[in-house]
């Protein structure tokens, strides 16, 4: 503790400016009827004027609790049990309710994950925005509205007058989040707290918001506390970061310096478990962090990360509470690790034996000219105008045995509809899907029979929702075995169920547990076991890891690929996360508005020439590697509605290459899917000569 105070007094003497936010040894606990649960322990950080501080960590690490403590909004059960929070030198922990009300919204503003939750759905945007200066600045109604209009223009929304007159539900998710940011900035706060502001948004929309946030920080000089679980995003938006683990700050410092030379085992493990460019499933596989996140009341003695740490030394690391140590030679870089000076941080991770994936075999599933239209009626009594939603416009692909085909696209591109048609939850409007020489596009799942159903299975996105909460894990797997007609007797099926639990590396005792006793990653493993219960030929995995924490993602991804390798299953991997896709897939299919816009091997898709949409998508993905240079391409506007798709090329409304195509062809004609190289096809009018000039979006700088 004395070290810490010393380092802080040093930093204070170096800086003459008062920090905007200064948190000192903050401890927060939640009190339940039976016990006290410490959520944050001994947390310190300083945000200087104009600085953007990133707070990174997995869910449950206490990062949102810190943000709420700054707003003094911990609810009935939460209490600050120690430490101080100083805002511009004033102690927030000792303020009265009245003082706090004056502070909130005017000096400190907060932006939450769900934009719709922050907007009043019954009030027009203009009125909501004008409320802020009227409340905090005492402006007249007309002046307040004028300010609102200014602000809407500042967050780069087109046609501010129309937006001011709209209700929140009339705007898209990205536009709503821009309004929330505008609202937060209306009172010109000194500190802006952003709690996962882009998690609910698509990557290309996220890129726009990130740009906006960065620009606002520069022009308005607002300090920011940016909370995120995404390391890449923090690197793109912040100058400083603070990594949290299990209620403690474990490493803090300058973003680029920490990313280039981390000094805490948890930060290092986190980086090794995320797919950065250069990771490869056979040559450089991801390394999952072993074990599980400790529950708040089951934290180990000494270092919280100890039980999962590869550098752990018993007797030292678990002896006493570990204080923050200053890393010498760096600017305000601290780590909560005893051994940071002994560990060889540059040493490569221990090599892992991974057998190379076998070459893909026969074609297992083939879709040709697949179309899925939905009909919807506008009016309440069925007399309204008939509208057709073209969810899947034209889908062609093949997938071979033992191959991973990634299906990439943003929300609304039709990838979930495609999954539904494949699974038989919907039937195709036109075209064909052939699985092992049998046409299945018109067979709803009830008509498929257990043989076909068990051949084609699915892993769902949300681990908290894929298991029936009132049935034990074992019973759910046994039910899948029963319905697939696997096994001869109850005893045999029970044995098979236990073997499936072994396969997904869960203890056999889990068979008797209810889903709520499992963590997210464990639930997803059960979901995988269930999908593979009937020896599936094709498994459709709909964003299987996107809802999981970073350290768990790697383990689940690895498991999925291992089972796939052993069973030679075809994996259709639906995702919006291009880093994961690049890491694990053999071939990639990019979808936009119901069209396949590009398909090819992973190398072909991730190298130029790209389809213009793929190019934008690649550029939008935040990458947590200071060595990587990216070309920033921010798409204008939003994805058009599938009810009213643009004429011609589906991407033409947002394409930055449109001008290079002669004769306005893009606006009148849907481009054909043409072959550029063996197996690499794109749906674009751009001539060969133009495609050849495309530069790679992601470059790894040479050291």
């Amino acid at each position, binding site marked *: 503790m004395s070290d810490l105070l010393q380092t802080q007094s040093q930093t204070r003497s170096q800086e003459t400016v008062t920090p905007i936010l200064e948190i000192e040894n903050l401890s927060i606990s939640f009190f339940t*009827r039976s016990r006290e649960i410490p959520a944050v322990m001994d947390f310190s950080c300083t945000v200087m004027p104009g600085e953007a501080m990133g707070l990174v960590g997995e869910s449950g690490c206490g990062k949102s609790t810190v943000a709420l403590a700054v707003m003094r909004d911990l609810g009935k059960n939460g209490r600050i049990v120690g430490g101080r929070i100083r805002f511009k030198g004033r102690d927030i922990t000792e303020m009265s309710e009245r003082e706090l009300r004056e502070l909130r919204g005017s000096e400190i503003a907060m932006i939450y994950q769900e934009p719709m939750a922050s907007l009043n759905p019954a009030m027009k945007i203009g009125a909501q925005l004008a409320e802020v200066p009227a409340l905090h600045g005492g402006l007249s109604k007309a002046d307040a509205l004028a300010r609102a209009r200014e602000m809407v223009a500042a967050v780069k929304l087109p046609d501010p007058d129309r937006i001011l007159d709209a209700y929140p539900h009339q705007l898209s998710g990205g536009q709503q989040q821009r309004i929330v940011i505008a609202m937060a900035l209306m009172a010109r706060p000194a500190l802006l707290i952003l709690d996962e502001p882009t998690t609910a948004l698509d990557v290309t929309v996220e890129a726009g918001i990130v740009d906006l946030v960065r620009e606002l920080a520069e022009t308005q000089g607002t300090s920011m506390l940016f909370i995120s679980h995404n390391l890449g995003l923090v690197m793109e938006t912040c100058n400083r970061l603070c990594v949290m683990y299990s209620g403690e700050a474990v490493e803090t410092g300058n973003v680029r310096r920490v990313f280039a030379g981390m000094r805490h085992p948890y930060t290092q493990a986190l980086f090794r478990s995320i797919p950065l460019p250069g990771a490869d499933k056979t040559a450089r596989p991801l390394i999952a962090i072993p074990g599980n996140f400790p529950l708040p009341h089951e934290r180990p003695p000494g270092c919280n990360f100890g039980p999962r740490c590869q550098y752990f030394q018993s007797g030292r690391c678990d002896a006493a509470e570990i204080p923050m140590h200053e890393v010498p030679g760096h600017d305000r870089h601290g780590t909560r690790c005893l051994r940071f000076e002994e560990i060889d941080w540059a040493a490569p991770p221990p090599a892992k034996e991974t057998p190379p994936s076998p070459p893909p075999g026969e074609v297992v599933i083939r879709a040709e000219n697949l179309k899925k239209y939905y009909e919807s009626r506008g009016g309440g009594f069925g007399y309204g105008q008939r509208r057709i939603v073209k969810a899947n416009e034209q889908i062609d692909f093949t997938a071979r045995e033992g191959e991973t085909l990634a299906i990439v696209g943003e929300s609304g591109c039709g990838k979930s509809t495609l999954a539904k048609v494949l*699974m*038989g*939850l919907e039937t195709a409007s036109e075209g064909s899907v052939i699985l092992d020489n049998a046409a299945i596009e018109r067979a709803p*799942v*009830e008509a*498929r*029979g*257990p043989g076909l*159903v068990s051949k084609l*299975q*699915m892993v*769902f*996105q*949300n681990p908290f*929702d*894929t*298991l*029936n*909460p*009132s*049935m034990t894990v074992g019973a759910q797997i046994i*039910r*899948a075995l*029963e*319905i*697939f*007609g696997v096994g001869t007797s109850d005893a045999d099926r029970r044995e098979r169920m236990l073997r499936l639990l072994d396969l997904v590396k869960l203890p056999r005792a889990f068979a008797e547990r209810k889903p*709520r006793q499992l963590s997210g990653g464990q639930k997803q493993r059960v*979901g995988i076991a*269930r999908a593979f219960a009937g020896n599936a030929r094709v498994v459709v995995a709909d964003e299987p890891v996107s809802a999981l924490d970073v350290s768990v993602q790697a383990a689940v991804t690895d498991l999925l690929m291992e089972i796939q390798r052993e069973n030679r299953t075809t994996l259709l991997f639906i995702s919006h996360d291009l880093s994961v896709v690049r890491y694990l897939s053999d071939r990639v299919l990019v979808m936009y508005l119901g069209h396949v816009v590009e398909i090819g091997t992973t190398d072909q898709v991730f190298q130029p020439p790209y389809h213009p949409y793929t190019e934008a998508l690649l550029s939008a993905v935040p990458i947590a590697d200071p060595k990587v240079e990216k070309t920033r391409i921010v798409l204008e506007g939003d994805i058009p509605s599938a009810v009213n798709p643009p004429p011609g090329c589906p991407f033409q409304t947002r394409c930055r290459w449109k001008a290079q195509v002669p004769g306005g062809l893009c606006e009148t004609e849907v481009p054909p899917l043409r072959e550029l190289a063996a197996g690499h096809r794109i749906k674009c009018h751009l001539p060969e000569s133009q495609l050849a000039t495309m530069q790679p979006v992601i470059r790894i700088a040479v050291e």
Partner: protein
Amino acid sequence: MDDLSWLQILTALAGRFAPVWIALVLTLAVSVWFRRRLGLYGRLFDSPIGLVGLVMLLFWVFTAIFADRVILFDPLSQIAQMKNKMPGTAIPTGIGHYLLGGDNLGRDVFSRMVMGARRVLIIAPAATAFAFMVGITLGLPAGYRGGRLDTVLSFIANLVLAFPVILLFYLLVTPEIRTTGLPIYLAGVLFLFPIVFLVLLWNSRFFMHRTRRAAYIGVTLVIGLWAWSGLALNADPLGVWSMDPNLLNVFVSVVFVNAPTVFRITRGLALDLATRDYVAAAQTRGEGPWYIMLWEILPNARGPLIVDFCLRIGYTTILLGTLGFFGLGVAPESPDWGSTINAGRKLLTIAPHPALVPAIALMSLVLALNLLADGLREESLRD
């Protein structure tokens, strides 16, 4: 013998309830001991409100069970000298006291109240359970399938709900309507639902085990249809199952009135739960619609349904009291609380106790059920 003072009355009352206290203490001790393994019921012991409700409810349940041991006199026997006597009055022949006084016919108010608990606690939960069977069996497909089925069923439910309840009861017990056999037909239809429900439940669960399915469905059909023939049609060949025609009327009306509300609750819950991934997972596994409704959706809708079940028993108890008050559907001498209150009403200024005792009993039972529902709701929302 002398009359008893109030303190003596209370002591004597507490003594009469001895079997109830013993059963109550035993039940609570066992429950507290195993509460960590008892799920929602065990968690009830963490909620003060729920615990109070549970204790009060258990008191009435045990009173109903041990009614024969608790009562002092036959609830129907009359002693002429004891008409409208105050609580604690000694009986002239020296065989004891009327602890809570005598009513206008000289019957023991205490014994009548205790026997009345038995009637209320049999009819109200049973009628509510039947209403739930009907509401769930129709509400699940309406919510899950939707479409025209939903439109038709919801319309019918609204139609029933829009009809004044008391008027409906009066109609159903009118001799002209009874001679048409309408209550019997209604009972025939409504009492079939539990059988349909159970058959669907077993069939969807075991359709790939031929023998097990045949066994479960066979047993359900044999017992169910046997009971149905006795209860609904009064035509049990063995004469085991039967129901008093008056009681049948009340029972059918209560089920008929409660089922639409249960239908609407279930429909809403099914509508929400049908969008969950585990339902989609069951669909992609090739499960039939009834399996999904009964085994994937229904167990996860149990929280709100259990809470409503408790509230609805209370509501039904009041409804039965109201019906008894109007003299509908019960034997003239019946000790049930509603008709006792009605009988005591006329002499309220001279002797309030014959009406007051059953009124307090009714109130405390309904309060117990409401508190229990509150506690269950609070605990089921946790974690």
